[in-house]
Every structure is written in structure tokens, then in C-alpha cells.
């Protein structure tokens, strides 16, 4: 949604989201690979056509503008993406 508020229990909000606030969670991997359905039938689609720089911009927009957190460097994003590629993590 335009305001990042998600859709009830169908699509999670990107504001005050526990995973986004958790620095050990890789938002970059979620954007690239999507998210499997947990509470429900829906999965989040992968955005694997995005470049590392685009993913970095999205992740940092969500971290800083939406959630008031510090940005993370493109190098960290790169290594996260390599890790989730290896583990095929979503």
C-alpha cells in the first residue's frame, strides 16, 4: 500500500513490523526472494529482477523514512544477498 500499512492480516504492514525492527533479519532477502505464506494462503512475490542498488534503496527507505532506523551499507546488503542466495532463504 502507498502508506506501507499492509492489508489487515493478508499483507503485513511495513511500519512497526517486528522483523523489520530486528537487525538480524535480512529485509534485502525478503525483497529479493519474497516471503512464504505463514498465517494464510498468500505468499509475497519475489522481486528478483531488482539490482543490488535498487534493493538497497528500498531496504533503506523502509528502515530510515518509514521506521526511523539507521541505513545499512550497500556492502552489508551485498553480503546478506550472497548469504540468502547460498541458503536459498526467503
Amino acid at each position, binding site marked *: 500500500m502507498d502508506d506501507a500499512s499492509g*492489508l*489487515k492480516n*493478508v499483507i503485513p504492514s511495513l511500519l512497526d513490523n517486528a522483523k523489520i525492527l530486528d537487525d538480524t533479519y535480512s529485509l534485502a532477502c525478503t525483497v529479493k526472494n519474497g516471503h512464504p505464506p505463514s498465517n494464510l494462503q498468500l505468499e509475497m512475490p519475489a522481486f528478483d529482477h531488482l539490482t543490488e542498488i535498487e534493493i538497497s534503496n528500498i531496504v533503506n527507505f523502509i528502515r530510515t523514512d518509514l521506521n526511523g532506523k539507521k541505513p545499512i551499507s550497500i556492502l552489508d546488503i551485498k553480503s546478506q544477498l550472497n548469504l540468502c542466495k547460498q541458503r536459498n532463504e526467503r
Partner: protein
Amino acid sequence: MSKVIFVLFSFCLVYSCGTDNTPLPVLGKPKIKDGQEVPHYIPDFSYLSQDSVFISNDFLKKHIYLADCFFTHCPSICPKVTKQMLRIHDAYKDNDQVKLVSFTLDPKRDTPERLKMYGDNLDVDHDAWYFLSGDKEETYDLCFEFFITAMDDELAPGGINHSGQIVLVDQEGHIRSFADGTDPKEVTRLLKDIKKLLIEIEAKN
């Protein structure tokens, strides 16, 4: 002088000067029925709801309703449209005169059970908002009667290309207004049109 303006102003507050009181139009091209030209109307349908009961246009004649065409797996515009349908739901869920009707374009996956779960995840009142499934081709044709285009398209996200209007239908099955369901501003206008239609019905009774 200022008194006069004040009086005029209060008059306007009470009688809503400036809001236009023309009735909502009947939209669409006329059809031929029994050799007579009649305004466009939604043809007969009967679809299974999330509670596995048949909902027909005949049943809906007791109500006015808002219709859209969607599917739960739709990754593109549907969540936005659904969010706007939710706005209407939240405004009218306690008013039995107004129903919401969402037709799935993907009945293979969107079984009544699944649609029930979807509705639960949206916190909707299942007596106010019907998620309907039926024959796929028939649904595509029916959506077209609501001026909503839908077609299979491998290139479209989710495999189905369709438009996201929310359509207001009166008790006679005529389309009286619609909005682009991805645009909250348009839906604000649609909410006003719903009110207008309810006033029109009130005046008739």
C-alpha cells in the same frame, strides 16, 4: 450586511447549497429486452459464497451493492482495491441495505473455504461482504457487464489482467456509479454516491 451573510451561510449549512442534488445517472449502453430498449442492467447470476450458499442477483435486489473482480493471489492491484472495499465495508457493515460483492477470477484456487479464510484475515463481516466463486469464463463475462475487463495474460502479474473498478449497483440491477478502486480519492467520491443512492431510495419509499 454581515448578519445577512451569516444567515445565508447557516441556510447553506442546513440545506447544503453547492452540493449537487441531481440523481445519479444510470450508466451503460441500453440493452434490448423483450423487444424493448431498456437501460443497461446486470444479467442474472448465481454464485457460491464463502459460506457455500448461493448468492444471486435476485437476492441482491433487496440491497444495493458494490462489486469488484479480484483473486486472492493477485500481487498487483487487488490488494489496493480490497483496501478500498474495506473502507466501504467498515462504513456500511452495520447497514443491511448495502452489500459488498467480490467475484473471484481464479475459482480454481479461490474455493469457498479459501475465500472464507481470506475474509477472516480481513476481519470482514461475512453477511456484509460476499466473496463469490463460479465458472471462470462466466465470471469474466459477468465482470464485463460491470465494465470490468478481465482476461488471461501470461505477462500480467498473477497471470490475469484485469481492471480495478468498484461498481455501485442499485436495487434494479442498474449501475449508478463506479470508481477506480486503486485511487482512494475516487473512492471517497464513491462513498458520497452511495449516500446519494440511499437518499434516493429513502425518498421513493
